[in-house]
């Protein structure tokens, strides 16, 4: 399960960022921020074609000792970044992909909401509850 989920707009500012251990939030914000560089590198055509240019899922961006960071870019250049706990080795690529799919579907729903202005922070409760369902249950 994810420890931190972030939705970054095309202009590289966060539309939605939430992490589970609510203390030490800054560390996750910083991690997401640094991962943006890696995302840009992966989607630029000049980089070596390590990632299939046509795919939306970017895969593992970079691992740290405690956490692994995954990325996903939509066609509208909105980036989803997910930080998962490294100790949770049972998490497979397919599960991460399906989590990103769910995120993308919810984001699309938020976008189609006529009361939502593109570029604002996401405040939808449905989106919140979907993200909560993906995150670790910390007691």
């Amino acid at each position, binding site marked *: 399960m994810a420890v931190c989920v972030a939705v970054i707009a095309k202009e590289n500012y966060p539309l939605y960022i939430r992490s589970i251990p609510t203390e030490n939030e800054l560390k996750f914000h910083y991690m997401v921020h640094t991962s943006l560089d890696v995302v840009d590198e992966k989607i630029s055509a000049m980089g070596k074609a390590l990632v299939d240019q046509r795919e939306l899922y970017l895969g593992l961006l970079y691992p740290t000792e405690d956490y692994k960071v995954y990325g996903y*870019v939509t066609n509208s250049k909105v980036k989803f970044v997910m930080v998962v706990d490294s100790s949770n080795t049972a998490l497979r690529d397919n599960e991460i992909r399906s989590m990103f799919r769910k995120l993308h579907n919810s984001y699309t729903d938020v976008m189609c909401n006529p009361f939502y202005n593109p570029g604002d922070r996401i405040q939808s409760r449905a989106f919140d509850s979907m993200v909560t369902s993906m995150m670790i249950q910390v007691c």
Partner: protein
Amino acid sequence: MADEALFLLLHNEMVSGVYKSAEQGEVVSAAKALEENGRCITKLENMGFRVGQGLIERFTKDTARFKDELDIMKFICKDFWTTVFKKQIDNLRTNHQGIYVLQDNKFRLLTQMSAGKQYLEHASKYLAFTCGLIRGGLSNLGIKSIVTAEVSSMPAYPDTGLHPKTPRSQPELKPRVRCSTNCATQVLR
């Protein structure tokens, strides 16, 4: 299915609704009327813009990432147009320097209108929403653009007093959408 008719009717009502709300009921001068017209068209275009943004997000959810601008324009011509108007764009031309001309020979939103010269000037009201739709879609995909539309009717019979013996079928209005993706100057109406 009745889907197409629904959107067509909604769109027609939308246009007349916007114009009715702009009418003050007082006597307006010709200049003011022109200004009102411009404002209504802008309103319609902005509505289309927002709808376009949402639609594009939904349609590109499952497609692969776009390689370049031309790829995006082809997507608009084929998938996007098919999903919204149930047909593809008939002709796409470009000058490879940021200007694309999309030609639709049988534009769904205008086919129900009779083709007389007097209606041509009003056709722009009905194209504003679609222009906004394209502009919104492109903007969400990262392309700043200006979209203009023009309508040219089928080549009419020359006015020599000859009358065709057989009844002429309704000529179709052929709107052409011109998108110029010139990032240096973006004009926001």
